């Protein structure tokens, strides 16, 4: 499993989004989110992160995952959100968390990146928007 989790954390250390691709108990999640702020290598994960304005995008990956590719993945995620929300900001993510989850589910399954086309990623969300 390449990607283990994806976290969005703001400058104050508040988690804005957490998506895990393996089951962790609440305690494990909490501890991880608490510790991770200052670690680059955390237990058996490697954490690749990139900052956009006030938000840090952290991706926990296996040790042999390609770091640069993950950075590109983060960028792709941000671009996709940009396209959907139009100049995405922290508040967009806070208030539309389910959509961001939906995007991520579209992009990553089982820890593998399965979709990299922005319009493909956004189709289900558009369907959802139409349905409601």
């Amino acid at each position, binding site marked *: 499993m390449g990607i283990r989790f994806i976290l969005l954390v703001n400058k104050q250390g508040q988690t804005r989004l957490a998506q895990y691709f393996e089951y962790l108990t609440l305690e494990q999640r909490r501890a991880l989110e608490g510790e991770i*702020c200052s670690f680059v290598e955390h237990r058996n994960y490697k954490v690749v992160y990139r900052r956009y304005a006030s938000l840090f995008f952290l991706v926990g990956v296996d040790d042999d995952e390609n770091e640069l590719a993950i950075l590109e993945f983060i960028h792709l995620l941000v671009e996709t959100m940009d396209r959907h929300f139009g100049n995405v900001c922290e508040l967009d993510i806070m208030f539309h968390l389910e959509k961001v989850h939906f995007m991520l589910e579209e992009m990553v399954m089982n820890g593998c990146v399965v979709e990299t086309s922005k319009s493909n990623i956004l189709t289900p969300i558009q369907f959802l928007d139409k349905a409601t």
Partner: protein
Amino acid sequence: MAGSSIMESLFQRSLEDLIKGLRLQLMGGGESKFIAKSMEEIRREIKSTDIQTKSTALEKLTYLNSIHAIDMSWASFHVVEVMSSNKFAQKKIGYLAASQSFNESTDVILLITNQLRKDLTSTNQFEVGLALECLSVIATTDLARDLTPEIFTLLSSTKIFVKKKAVAVILRVFSKYPDAVRVSFKRLVENLESSNSDPAAAIGVFCELTSRDPRSYLPLAPEFYRILVDSKNNWVLIKVLKIFSELAPLEPRLAKRIVDPISEHMIRTASKSLMFECIRTVVTCLTDYETVLKLAVEKISEFFLSDNDDDPNLKYLGLQALSILASKEHLWAVVENKEFVIKSLSDMDPNIKFESLRLVMEMVSESNVAEITHVLVGYALKSDPEFCNEILGSILLTCSRNVYQVIVDFDWYVSLLGEMSRNPHCQKGEEIERQLVDICLRVREVRPELVRVARDLLIDPALLSNPYMHRILRAAAWVSGEHVEFSRNPFELMEALLQPRTHLLPPLIRAVYIQSAFKVLVFCLQSYLVQKEVISSSLDDLAPRGFGLHFDRNFPESSELSKQEASADCEQDGDFNPRLKRTAEDYTGDRIVANGQTSSSVSLENDPFTHESIVNLLHLIKRALGPLSGSDEVEVQERARSVLGLIDLMEQEIPGLLVREGSLKGEELQGLKVLDLIQHSFSKELGPVSLSAQERVLVPDTLLLKENLAELDTVCGDILLSPSSTFSLGNILFGEKNNTLQKEKESEPSTESTSLLAEHRKRHGLYYLSSTDKNGSGSNDYPPVNEMNNLIDGAQDLLKLTAQSVDSKKKSSYSKRRPMVVRLDDGDEEAGLAVEKTKDSKDDSLSGVVRDILLGDETKPMSSQSKPSGKSSGKRRVKEVTLNIGHPSQSKETLGEVEIPRQGSSNVHSSHGKERHRRSKKKDGDKDESSRKDKQMGHRRGRSKNQQSADIQTPAIPDYLL
């Protein structure tokens, strides 16, 4: 009822309201109260009969669970209800909640099988997508088994949206229910094929599978190879490269084949991530191929060029690649980039600093170790504490590796250890202590220097206040006591050992100090008395008697006088004689002591063992240790008492001890004998002990060993009740008493976890991003600007020096030969290195099945109770497909090696059988047979394809592995 649900949904707070409310509370600080209130609402709303109200409540709960870690396991049945909603938006909420909260122990997971089956077969592809995504996270063995047929169908769906998800979910299904491999492996492999527009998902799955058990997937190498050559998608290429870096080490011919395409990619690609993956593949498994390796090193150097906007990621990864090479004996690659490596020691980014430090240490060799470490130790002084210790740690590690292999000049090394100890940031006390003692035991020649270094550490009162120094001081005290004969001034040493500030030491270390003082005292007394006796005996015109002070050590076993000893004694007499002329008064002026500080540097020419000095010494000891004889610490008390006891004994036995002049009388010789005995017991040389020494001692037959602590059970069986069981007992009672059981249960975990968090915060407070001032102090970790220059200067120094020393590999300017270093026969170093186990080959059921399928090994039939329909046929089909794999290569390659296709078997499996041939000749036979059987029986779907491909094949089957 209906009315109330309308009211509910009208006045229900939406998720947006909840988030807004939370944001308001964030400023006020009443967050947890607000959450508790919201949870109350959610609990009420979620029981509503109105599905809209219920799903909104669940949405809010899911939000609180993911962001505020509120438990939602209690709501799992509601999750199932929302999942089954007809409205997509609600269904979506249910599925998100399920993937977020369900796990193996969720009991309602048994209820969702039918719902999932319904959604998997839905005509709405997005609903199918929801179900697949959810399955990829929560699938249990039961779910995987029951839904394999549906997933199998979806694997060849015409909708790409669905198909890629079905492929991705397969990974979870396989790991939960390996028998699914038999059914769906073929279709999974089909997804790799070129006709397929996007092999990303399939490659992702294979990448993961391969990393678990590479060998099983070797037969698929041709497919992967085709993707490596043809694909334009960087994501896919990166994954394929990862697969090859697992496969290549297993199959040298494969490694040879992928060298060219990888070089091509490196030359062509503009993508840094793909470039790095190529580099990593080359440095990890293609280092035997010179041209591609050179190219990779060239590309690594390009990462270091400043026109990359100084991207620290590239620098870091480049350094990492170099250190992989360095660990594989390709040091030249590091040396080629040494300028950058050394410059990076002063980089702003700590990761880069650490990585470059590691590389600098890789460059250390016998000839340059002194220079490199000298500069590094100087550099450490100017670094921030963390990096400073990193530097010291890696120096210690490198120098001690393989029983100090790189060290020739041990005198230099022990003084380096002394220098490192004095670094104010040094926290490596434990390791330095270990090495000081270790070297003392192993290297005889270095002891005089070691005693000198130890003395310098001991006499410095400032060091005693640094707790990190205590361990080092312990080693220093032990060394100087054990080898006091090398001390130039034992009195000074004694003062150092007994200085008032030693009260800062922990009791156990103080005990070592006192024990050393004991040894020093014995040495001084004996030296004094021997000298006295020498005087008297020379007065009596007797032949000099050898007590063999130092020389006992060299010949501990011999009690007779050997020639050497005699001559050595003569030398000693020579030393002593001039002193005879002096009187004790000569020295009293600058003697010592009152404050215990060592101010008087007694020059060596002075004879230390005068009557005056001994008297002073005894006074000093009595004054310093007297109070300790009542110490609370047993170790300290006992040792202090033995020292004082010895003094008492001596004063009794040798009344003349304190008399200035005169020879020893008969009974005084008795005292001398006592001292001799003690001295003798100290003079037994200590050596390193092998780790396995204990094993070599035979257990005597007469020794009765009882069963391990078995008797303890009867004694304290009632005490050993496990705490957990009592706890749960209490819980049950509690539950029975309380009829609002559910409520309690729900609130319990959250309080428990907050207390856990608080505890964690207490322990790791350092790592919490708390207030802004932390950031401020964080930036202080970096050296101020003006110091930066120094740092760079330091780096420059190092640069210069490595330029000289790294290049000139062997600089045999060492006048000293390397002293003998005691090594134990069973290589004690290996034990310390903790041999790294290679990845345990997870020979689990999954790879077993995959092997069955890919290698046609039928010896391991899987047992499964309810096999999905079409299981056996599916298996056969898969086998055929893997046989087909050889095709795409077509006939460019010829058979380079002599392994000729086995006659009697069809062309198709010869291409494949050869590969297998190498591993298990035995199985060849029955595999051929079985596949022949397969052919005869054929299969509806696989048949036509197989025949078609068989037609295409030319007699000489190209083999990708050749």
